[in-house]
């Protein structure tokens, strides 16, 4: 193969051994020219990360079987010795990991961590290494880099940590940057900043970029070419504009269709809100953290009418979850009142939790979990219970015969359905959904959203739908409340909030949403730069 490529992959297969062998990647071939940018997209579990790991030989010693030929920056990864591999890692090809929270050593200063990596590859003094660390931190836009390089990761926000990781990747000026879902854990606004940074770096430093993501929107903003993967195989590959505009394969098309867009036509007609099922007046919640007091929710008043959906958006830490938990009575408000259709007693409200893994007890069968509220309500007859649970399972589109199965036997989307069934079991009037789809990939996300809409229509439920993804909220809500630092800064119908936002914060949120159109993405990027400059 010619010398113009940083990555050349030929017939790559990755197999994980175990009780059931998992063929994570099967016969995958692709290449990446020097300075080029390629995105690996595909739903969860399609083998993207496994591929990325294979490029740096990270499967070595873990038991995974890697076949095929892999050449990265001129190094034959399969045949390289340990020492050669170490020389490759970080120096010629560097990786940015998905979760910035856990990818840095919590115990050492950020600058020291970067310096350590540098000293592995270059014979430089400790002091010079520190200086270089400050330099790259400055390069990725960490303000006051000299001082911040002495901070530990927990003193950084998520976005800053991700920047620090990118800085670490830059330290040795590699030819290739592999970014494995670099923005999944971040807010839209921060996500936009990171993507902009990667974009800028690539242009200025001439690195190759391999971007791994399940978010087609992210890919559209950042790369020249995409490789769509499914079940470990390549489905489609081509220039990003072509693939996104005119996908050749049905799978690609489904994937694209499932992506919620801000510009899609509104699918639901705003319902006329009935009598309020929930009224909140002046809710406030404080948390004590050592000597400091954090006001997570500050003077929030809202109403939810019968059959209505109230969407709540806001960036991470804006108080959405705290508000949601207060609404269902899981958390005592510090001050403020809550009324549920006339009573002050918490009744007829349920919650669907953000994380489908954490919200089900791994040691209890899903049938039992769904039956709990019924049992608590005093139902003793096992047959009645079983029938009701089966009915609910069917309702949320699960096989009623899986009553006795355990959560781990279900996929993320299925688990979220179990959570919904559990919330529905006591026939609530109002369900608070706390980011019910953020942990799911686009296709599953679309299914769950559809299900919620359907249930709402059939059962006359009221919903509070919490999310940080503006496009998703737009799809399901009648009214929107935008939260910022614990307060509701803007409230109105979907058309009002999305059509003519009044608050600058709302505007910034909207501008940060990735788009599927690379051209539009470029325009937005420019607009964002102006917003920052302003």
């Amino acid at each position, binding site marked *: 193969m010619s010398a113009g490529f940083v990555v050349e992959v030929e017939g790559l297969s990755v197999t994980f051994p175990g009780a059931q062998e998992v063929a994570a990647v099967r016969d995958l071939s692709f290449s990446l020219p020097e300075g080029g940018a390629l995105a690996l997209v595909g739903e969860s579990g399609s083998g993207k990360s496994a591929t990325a790991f294979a490029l740096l030989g990270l499967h070595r010693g873990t038991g995974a079987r890697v076949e095929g030929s892999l050449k990265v920056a001129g190094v034959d990864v399969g045949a390289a010795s340990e020492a050669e*591999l170490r020389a490759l890692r970080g120096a010629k090809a560097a990786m940015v990991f998905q979760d910035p929270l856990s990818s840095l050593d919590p115990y050492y200063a950020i600058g020291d961590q970067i310096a350590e*990596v540098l000293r592995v590859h270059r014979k430089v003094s400790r002091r010079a290494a520190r200086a270089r660390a400050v330099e790259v931190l400055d390069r990725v836009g960490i303000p006051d880099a000299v001082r911040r390089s002495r901070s530990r990761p927990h003193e950084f926000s998520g976005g800053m940590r991700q920047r620090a990781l990118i800085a670490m990747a830059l330290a040795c000026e590699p030819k290739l940057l592999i970014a494995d879902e670099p923005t999944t854990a971040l807010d839209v606004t921060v996500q936009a900043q990171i993507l902009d940074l990667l974009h800028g770096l690539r242009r200025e430093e001439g690195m190759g970029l391999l971007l791994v993501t399940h978010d087609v929107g992210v890919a559209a903003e950042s790369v020249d070419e995409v490789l769509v993967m499914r079940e470990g195989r390549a489905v489609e590959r081509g220039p990003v504009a072509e693939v996104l505009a005119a996908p050749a394969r049905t799978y690609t098309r489904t994937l694209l269709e499932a992506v919620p867009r801000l510009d899609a036509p509104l699918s639901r007609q705003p319902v006329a809100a009935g009598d309020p099922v929930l009224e909140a007046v002046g809710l406030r919640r404080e948390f004590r953290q050592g000597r400091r007091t954090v006001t997570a929710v500050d003077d929030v008043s809202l109403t939810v009418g019968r059959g209505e959906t109230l969407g709540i958006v806001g960036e991470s830490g804006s108080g959405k979850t705290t508000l949601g938990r207060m609404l269902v009575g899981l958390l005592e408000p510090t001050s403020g009142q809550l009324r549920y259709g006339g009573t002050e007693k918490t009744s007829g409200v349920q919650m669907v939790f953000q994380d489908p893994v954490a919200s089900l007890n791994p040691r209890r069968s899903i049938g039992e979990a769904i039956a709990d509220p019924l049992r608590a309500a005093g139902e003793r007859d096992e047959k009645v219970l079983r029938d009701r649970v089966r009915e609910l399972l069917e309702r949320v589109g699960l096989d009623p015969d899986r009553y006795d199965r355990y959560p781990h036997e279900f996929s993320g989307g299925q688990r979220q359905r179990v959570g919904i069934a559990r919330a529905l079991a006591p026939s609530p009037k109002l369900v608070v959904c706390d980011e019910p789809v953020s942990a799911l990939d686009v296709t599953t996300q679309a299914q769950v959203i559809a299900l919620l809409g359907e249930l709402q229509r059939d059962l006359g439920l009221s919903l509070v739908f919490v999310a940080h993804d503006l496009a998703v909220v737009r799809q399901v809500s009648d009214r929107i409340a935008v939260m910022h630092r614990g307060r509701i800064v803007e409230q109105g119908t979907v058309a009002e909030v999305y059509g003519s936002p009044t608050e600058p914060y709302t505007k910034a949120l909207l501008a940060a949403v990735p788009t599927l159109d690379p051209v539009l993405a470029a325009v937005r990027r420019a607009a964002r730069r102006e917003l920052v400059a302003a």
Partner: protein
Amino acid sequence: MTGFLLRRLGGAVFVLLSLSVFLYLVFYVAPGNVAQIACGPRCSPAQVAQVHEQLRLGDPLWLQYAHFVQGIFAGRDYSSGVGVLHCNAPCLGVSYQSDQQVTQLILNKLPVTGSLVIGAFALWLLLGVGTGVLSVWRRGRPTERVLTWLTLAGTATPVFVIGLLLIIVFCSTLQWLPFPTYVPFGENPEQWAWNLLLAWVSLAAIESAKYARLTRSSMLETLAEDHVRTFRAYGVSERALVGRHALRGAVAPVIALSALDFGSMFGGAVLTESLFGLPGLGRELVEAVKVVDLPVVVGMVLVTGFFVVLANAVADLLYAVADRRVVLS
């Protein structure tokens, strides 16, 4: 910080008071005639009665306890025969059996137990953590297995067996080391160390296994974490990963466990102290329990309890220093 210290102090006072009340209650119902033991086996009933009165054993339990508490804060007087001796606050009372002031007794014993515990502690940390690190670095290889077996042999053998065997081998048969007696550090630091060496080794042999296991498991846990993966992906060598990043993760649990062990060793190294002829707190304590010498028992348990509480507080402080994410509570 001040709040933390105050709360800890309050907690400590509660713990120590509860301990002393508990001991008073237990010893109140304990069999054995204290006055008779103090007087001697062939004292006449009249003499026993005199001793009984002198030790104020006739007082109701609450009054005895009140006097005890009074002694701590205000001191107490007692008769030496020729005159009245004053026991200055904090006075933990006077031994029923030997007429010695408990405070003085403790001050005499503390350096001995301190020498034993501190040395053993350093050694078992070194051995334990060292073994743990080594077995992680060489994981899956014969070295790890050998180390595992060795440390387990340590846990499985009671200290009196290990201790006696060490003495027989090193002092009696090989004669490499002196037969242990206690030499105060201030008198001769070198002799101090040589005499204590076997005692340290015996305790360390038993304790280090736990630390090896804890270090090993924490390190393996850390090695499985994402941030280690990051450094591996940046070409950092396995040795640096184990020695720098994984070991750092084991510091916190090791500190927590050390606090528990360090504290409880102050009153708990009974067997080691008696085997190695160390006139320390643990041995004295057991002797005192046997002769129902309540003032000595209470005084010493309070001191050892204090060390447990102190060690835990220090551990929390250390931990907060080690891991700045932690807020003291």
